[in-house]
């Protein structure tokens, strides 16, 4: 089952050997069953529990948590995620954008026979398109009213929390709102370095917020959900 069963797994199996549930000790059939059917043997994909977040969730999370608003009031996002592989409410077939039974080839999931459905829309084009979309989210927004982007965040307001020069506070805020505290050390240092490289000016606060938000949205932490 595994080269390194956890101590708890071993203990559970040992307990069955000691008592198969009917007061019998040494029931090997029960022991085999316990080994094969333990949650750890059956259910643990490599790296543990979790999933890759689909593009729609990446956008809705940002919009709700950071506080995006729609200029038109109609949230004109129809085509925004087409290139990321998931134009909402417009899946190519009745089988949705990706199948529950999808096993991504040439991955650790395939080696385990595990499904990872969201990977069916992950490819060289869609990952690049997502990061480009993230740049727009961190910039002037998504969608188009005819004269301006529709769904946007007031980064000047977001950045005002670092107007006093405390870059850590913004990093912490993005960690809380967008990453549930999962910001890695590497991401934190990248965010801080990018913000620190922006010289003071009237637009510095807004630009620092944009740079930090873009790096978070484009980070691997943001697209995964453990």
């Amino acid at each position, binding site marked *: *089952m595994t080269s390194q069963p956890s101590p708890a797994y071993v203990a559970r199996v040992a307990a069955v050997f000691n008592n198969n549930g009917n007061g019998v000790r040494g029931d090997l059939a029960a022991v085999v069953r316990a080994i094969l059917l333990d949650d750890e043997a*059956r259910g*643990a*994909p*490599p*790296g*543990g529990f*979790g*999933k*890759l977040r689909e593009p729609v969730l990446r956008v809705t999370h940002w919009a709700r948590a950071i506080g995006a608003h729609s200029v038109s009031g109609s949230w004109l996002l129809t085509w925004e995620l087409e*290139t990321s592989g998931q134009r909402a409410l417009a899946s190519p*077939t009745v*089988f949705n954008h990706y*199948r529950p*039974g*999808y*096993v991504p*080839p*040439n*991955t*650790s*999931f*395939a080696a385990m*026979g*595990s*499904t*990872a459905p969201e*990977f069916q*829309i*992950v*490819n*060289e*084009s869609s990952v*690049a*398109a997502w*990061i*480009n979309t993230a*740049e727009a989210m*961190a*910039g002037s927004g998504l969608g188009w009213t005819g004269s301006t982007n529709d769904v946007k965040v007031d*980064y000047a307001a977001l950045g005002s929390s670092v107007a006093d020069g405390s870059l850590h506070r913004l990093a912490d805020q993005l960690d809380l709102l967008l990453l549930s505290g*999962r910001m890695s050390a*590497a*991401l934190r240092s*990248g965010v801080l*370095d*990018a913000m620190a490289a*922006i010289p003071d000016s009237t637009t510095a606060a*807004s*630009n*620092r917020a*944009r*740079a930090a938000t*873009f*790096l978070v949205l*484009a980070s*691997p932490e943001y*697209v*995964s*959900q453990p």
Partner: protein
Amino acid sequence: MTANRRAFFRASAGLAAAAAAPGLRLHVPLAMGLAGLGALASQRAQGAGIQDGYKALVCLYLAGGSDSHNWLLPTDTANRASYATARGELAWPTDRVQDIGNGGQASGRSFGMPVELAPLRNWYTQGKLGWLANVGTLVRPVSKADFQAGLGLPAKLFSHNDQAATWQSLQPEGAPTGWGGRMGDILMAANQRPVFTAVSASGNAVFLSGSNVTQYQVGTNGPVAINGAQDGWRAGSSAVPGELRKLLAGSGANAFEAEYLRVVQRSLATSGTLQAALDAGPALDLPSAPITLPAGTPLALANDALARQLRIVARMIAAGPAMGMKRQVFMVSVGGFDSHSFQMRDQPLLMGRVAHAVDWFLQTMQAQGQLNNVLLFSASDFGRGLASNGDGCDHGWGSHHFVAGGSVQGGHIHGSMPVTALGTADDLGAGRLLPSTAVTQYAASLGGWMGLGASDLAAALPNLGSFSGAPALV
């Protein structure tokens, strides 16, 4: 998210038990066969004579189960009559059918194609397009009695996603590799840039995935560049590109991040090279002036999704030799073929789109001097039943497909055209026909052209030994 239990038990059960069950349990024997595949790949590439020139295999996938009974239909009196009786309102009107002759089928039979497919018929009469009759997914040859008893059948017949996976990989959904990718595993050693061995213009599909070959996705305008990773002022700071590149260079904190980052890194590593190669090659623009289809519908290829996919494939083929590529497998797809309803309304446009896009592609390859090096073949989830449900027809099995290119044995109908009538020995109900040629055999003919020898083909197509021979498509 839980592990696939079936795969778990298959892997943990004795391999001997799985290997003893012919055909159906392809997963484990395939894995066993693949164990040595990578190691032998370079030797096989040499042995298969892949030092010669350049070849590209292009899969045109018609998603949904194309009703090919109306793409290649009988025109001799007796068979036309039984076709018309069987199909009812789905029968293509005789005044919109163009004859193509006997095709090498039984004496007295003649066939035709709808006028909507006239561009393809042109290539047929030039000998550059051939038909393969009544091909379908098969584990081994089966009879109607076998079907009725459920013996030796492909898993999950008539299921879209499983039959699509079976066409592409010889296994139902969840297959880890496709036969295009498995052929790529053997052929990739001949390529200077193996990353571009198996290229999709149409989205993720198992067809192009091998043990070593990974499907490479290209957009219809070429690779998608990550703008924020290009040096300059991005998202508020000129430091952002450098920081982004650092973040994307990692290996992630869990399997999801790790696999996602691998794709990102491949995208970053290749988009510049590929874009430069495409820019150095011909633009191959699609015509924007609309073609008027027989029903009067305008078709502007420049705006057509299938034509745009074939255009990027054509550009990559044009750039292939300069990139040191010798063998490539491509995939393009078009949807809308699941004609349970509105079939007679929708089929003409679908036919027109496919015919004109493929025609443009073949003409372009010819102008580039590459027509002899390109082989385009059609594929679909399944055919459909002859019988009408009142407005369309339902999932079938055997279907007719075409191959096109300079090396094709064209002007010919390969395999055996069934009798287009209900109640025959091939009719499994509602005119769903038992295939007479297997996808495996179809693939073997294509793989042979690409340079795979007998043992290579057996490795890429695990149930090939269940069939005798392959159609001489090239």
